[in-house]
């Protein structure tokens, strides 16, 4: 390979070949059966080889594998390929992979076209394999058509602010801020409320270490506040955001400050589900509270000084109802005011509830504790032990089906049936620190909870309750301003949507934006901290060198064609992304459009209005689209499969 060629990425590598004499390699992936079980890959390859440029056409079980990539690399050098087309899964997964492979072979990475024949062909056409094969053939044709018109592009490299803004001063935000500061990056931490710590500051003891939440938090807050690299703004909110990766500009109110930052970590946290009026008696009976209220009660520094009482009376029976506002099912549960169902599991509530239940049994041994659950989800390290411990301490578990939820109602003022065996004297108490068994059990609980218990052969049980605790889950927090300003995407459950749960779990779709903690999904403190650190790692990698390389899909101007009419300037929505400039050309002063690549977002508003086609988004040129459409409607008579 010619060395200078590899060094200058923009140099035309086509050696004077015309679009139709370019050497194009076409690779069709089986995706281990994901594609090849439906699409006849051999036929696709056959069709591709019939195209004028199909120099090398292959199919392979896993193009993304090391071997698959090497196949391309070897072909590029052996067969002197000019362009590469891979038909495989969605470009969101592997476009990058193959661009990198092409680059490793010494070619410009942008002389590559990716065709999606998995998500948009095989997976949505299982019952029509012939149709899917034909579709794949046409899409590959379109890919080749576009590939003919690809140009080598150079990534845009620019300076980045070695500064990160963390939005949200809860535990994950604090963790992220501290980690970033530790490696020497400047950090601005913006917190909406008056103090740092988020929900965690409200809690008493936390699983699985039984640490005091406030002690843990104090340690972290002290580190953050004492760190010279971190600037903290409380009672502050981002109200406007602009810029791009490496160079964001945030306007923060009410302090009227502007933060220039290279990356943003969103750690905006969650809200607790607010039960609807009448949901399990919430709002109807004062004895119905939520888990966080119970946590406050158990806190010696809380409103009851740690006493378990309701309306001034000791609580003899506590009934905790799991999954309130979580795991909702269409047709069974009532949608919330926003019309949405929370179909997800809130993940932390089971262990938190078991912890609280165990604490009640330990501190108030005469208080009966009931837990009405659907599934106990003590999944994490040290969590199952809470379930074990709560059981051992005598917490009574009943399991209800989603379609037969417990019913909370006021108790009838009557005496219970009593128990006969009480006339016998109490014996020596055993390990459990037994209290005398009383027949005159007063049935004076304020409420009763009725539940069809699947652990008791479907028996309808009646549970006395002085306190009904609704175990409410997490819901996405209201962050509309940020969502608007930063163009964040949310998943179906309303939480922020990462790019890919496994490949890029802490990255958001907008470059330079990262997500940490419970604004992404319910998680506990430990997991929030891990997510905070992971997001910090990504931000650190992004800003490590102080320079950022961007995809070159911007809209440059073909000066030969531009007539300087300025339609593009009118159309452009980004301030100063495109401007008209006057230059001397061939001794004449001419006006033409000029694009600022750092500000251009490549939306193509200008392209549509340009009368001469002078301004085009690189990588998405209109002639490329025209060619693709041509290819889609072209005749593939020899290779297309006829429908039976």
């Amino acid at each position: 390979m010619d060395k200078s060629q590899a060094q200058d990425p923009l140099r035309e590598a086509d050696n004077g070949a015309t679009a139709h004499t370019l050497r194009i390699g076409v690779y069709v992936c089986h995706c281990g059966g994901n594609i090849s079980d439906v699409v006849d890959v051999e036929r696709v390859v056959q069709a591709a080889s019939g195209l004028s440029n199909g120099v090398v056409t292959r199919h392979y079980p896993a193009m993304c594998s090391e071997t698959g990539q090497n196949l391309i690399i070897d072909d590029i050098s052996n067969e002197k390929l000019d362009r590469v087309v891979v038909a495989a899964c969605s470009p969101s997964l592997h476009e990058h992979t193959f661009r990198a492979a092409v680059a490793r072979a010494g070619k410009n990475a942008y002389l590559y076209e990716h065709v999606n024949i998995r998500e948009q062909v095989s997976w949505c056409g299982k019952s029509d394999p012939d149709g899917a094969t034909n579709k794949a053939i046409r899409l590959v044709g379109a890919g080749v058509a576009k590939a003919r018109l690809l140009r080598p592009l150079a990534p845009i490299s620019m300076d980045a602010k070695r500064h990160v803004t963390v939005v949200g001063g809860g535990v994950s935000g604090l963790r992220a801020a501290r980690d970033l500061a530790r490696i020497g990056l400047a950090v601005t931490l913006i917190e909406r409320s008056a103090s740092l710590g988020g929900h965690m500051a409200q809690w008493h003891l936390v699983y699985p270490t039984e640490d005091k939440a406030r002690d843990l938090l104090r340690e972290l807050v002290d580190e953050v506040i004492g760190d010279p690299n971190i600037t903290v703004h409380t009672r502050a909110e981002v109200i406007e955001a602009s810029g791009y990766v490496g160079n964001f500009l945030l306007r923060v109110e009410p302090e009227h400050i502007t933060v220039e930052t290279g990356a943003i970590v969103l750690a905006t946290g969650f809200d607790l589900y607010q039960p609807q009026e009448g949901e399990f008696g919430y709002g109807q009976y004062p004895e119905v509270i939520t888990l966080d209220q119970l946590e406050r009660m158990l806190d010696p520094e809380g409103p009851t000084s740690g006493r378990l009482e309701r309306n001034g009376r000791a609580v003899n029976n506590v009934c905790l109802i799991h999954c309130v506002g979580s795991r909702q099912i269409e047709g069974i549960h009532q949608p919330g005011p926003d019309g949405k169902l929370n179909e997800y599991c809130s993940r932390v509530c089971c262990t938190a509830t078991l912890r609280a239940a165990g604490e009640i049994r330990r501190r108030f041994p005469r208080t009966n504790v009931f837990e009405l659950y659907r599934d106990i989800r003590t999944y994490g390290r040290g969590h199952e032990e809470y379930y074990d411990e709560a059981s051992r301490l005598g917490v009574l578990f009943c399991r209800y089906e989603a379609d037969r939820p417990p019913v909370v109602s006021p108790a009838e003022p009557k005496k219970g049936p009593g128990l006969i065996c009480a006339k016998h004297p109490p014996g020596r108490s055993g390990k459990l620190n037994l209290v005398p068994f009383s027949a005159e059990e007063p049935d004076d609980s304020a409420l009763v909870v009725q539940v069809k218990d699947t652990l008791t052969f479907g028996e309808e049980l009646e549970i006395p309750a002085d306190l009904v605790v609704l175990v409410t889950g997490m819901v996405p927090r209201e962050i509309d301003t940020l969502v608007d300003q930063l163009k964040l995407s949310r998943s179906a459950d309303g939480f922020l949507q990462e790019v890919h749960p496994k490949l890029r779990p802490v990255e958001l779709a907008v470059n330079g934006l990262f997500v940490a903690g419970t604004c992404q999904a319910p998680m506990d403190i430990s997991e929030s901290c891990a997510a905070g650190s992971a997001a910090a790692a990504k931000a650190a990698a992004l800003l490590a060198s102080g320079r950022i390389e961007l995809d070159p899909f911007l809209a440059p101007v073909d000066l030969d064609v531009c007539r300087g009419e300025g339609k593009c300037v009118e159309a452009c929505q980004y301030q100063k992304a495109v401007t008209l400039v006057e230059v001397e050309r061939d001794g004449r002063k001419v006006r033409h459009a000029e694009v600022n690549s750092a500000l251009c977002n490549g939306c193509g508003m200008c392209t549509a209005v340009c009368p001469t086609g002078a301004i085009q988004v690189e990588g998405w040129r209109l002639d490329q689209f025209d060619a693709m459409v041509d290819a889609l409607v072209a005749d593939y008579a020899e290779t297309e499969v006829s429908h039976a």
Partner: protein
Amino acid sequence: MHHDKIDTDALVIGGGIAGLQAALDLADQGFRVLIVEKQPSIGGKMIGLSKVFPTLDCCSCICTPRMAEAEHHPNIAIMTYTEVRHVRREGDRFIADLVKKPRYVDEDKCTGCRLCEYACNTELPHEFEGDLGVRKAIYVPFSNAVPQVALLDLENCILCGRCEKVCPVGAIDFLQQPQETVVRAGTVVVATGYETIRTDFKKEYGQGRLPNVLGALQVERLLAPHGPYGRVLRPSDGKVPDSIAYVQCAGSRDRSAGVSYCSRVCCMYAIKQAMLLCGTLPLADITIYYMDIRAFGKGFEQFYQNAKAMGIEFVKAKVASITEDQQQNPIVRIEVIEEDGRVEQRQHDMAVLSLGLVPGWDPREVGLAAPAPDGFIRCTQPMIAPCRTPDEGVFVAGCAAGPKDIPDSIIEAGAAAMEAAAYLHEHTHVAGKETTTTCMK
């Protein structure tokens, strides 16, 4: 004996997904990383899985790019088939003694063409396929292994010499010796992963002697595109199973089996496998016997509800015993808890044990601090710095610190990388900004 010396910023023990991610996150920050993997290929357990929950992405589509990225990253060096013998601290640095086991194949020469494998006459159960499939005495570990290099199983080799004859590049090296390497590193990330509990852990489950009672990882292979049979068949006689049972909490949440904790991933992988089986065997009845369904992660609950809607049967019951009938059909014995509590014996064509996750490695073997009582690496600050271990400067990621699913492992790997990076900054004043390539083979 050949001695090598390597100097690096971070030593990552374990080349599974957590180790790879931690290495990538460190390397992207400019640190030099050495990944040590004891298996002949990186990729860990993940590369052997079929598809992943809850997205049903093809697992190798997610794992192979990470493997390739690590392999090609200028800041990352990888040593496979290498064991860490000892790690000790020397001032601000860690000194690790590594031993690379002989493959009897020259890694630099081998092209992974597999001619030797075809020529070899000795057939053995393939460990990568959960012993279900066949491999030869010389073989490339699996189709997407990194590196794509063969290795010779000397213990089972009859030294006939065929492989040497057919190798086009003369890569067979019968006289290869273990190779010792000393690594100096600024920090260590432990990502040694997990093992599944052995199938013979419980006498009531047939002690691993029932041919149609499989471990879940074996079923992953049956479902994987290049699996041992190319489709889902049962091992006793190659029958297409019509009825498949999933036995949850097999070696988790069971003190009688010595494991009291929840293995965290089994519910979801069982549901996933059940869905995939529904896809490949549309007529099959699939029953999942569970104690609690733990679909706690993002999108998991919806996944579970979808599985229910697909007709997968969920039965709340702890399977007490598995026996077999004349045709080697497994029979599970349960209490039908949610109905009248009657005891039933249900016959299936195949039963899958959702085997629990147990520690894969004891840090004491290399001189690191003792693990927690559950056998996994101890975390000193599980709440606010979950990756720290009792050994300062040693961080943990993934299942080495307890069972975890892939997203959680990857996030934790990022966290471990962050901790390691901060530690390097604070302790060895590594600039780490310039991209420096380690040259080693």
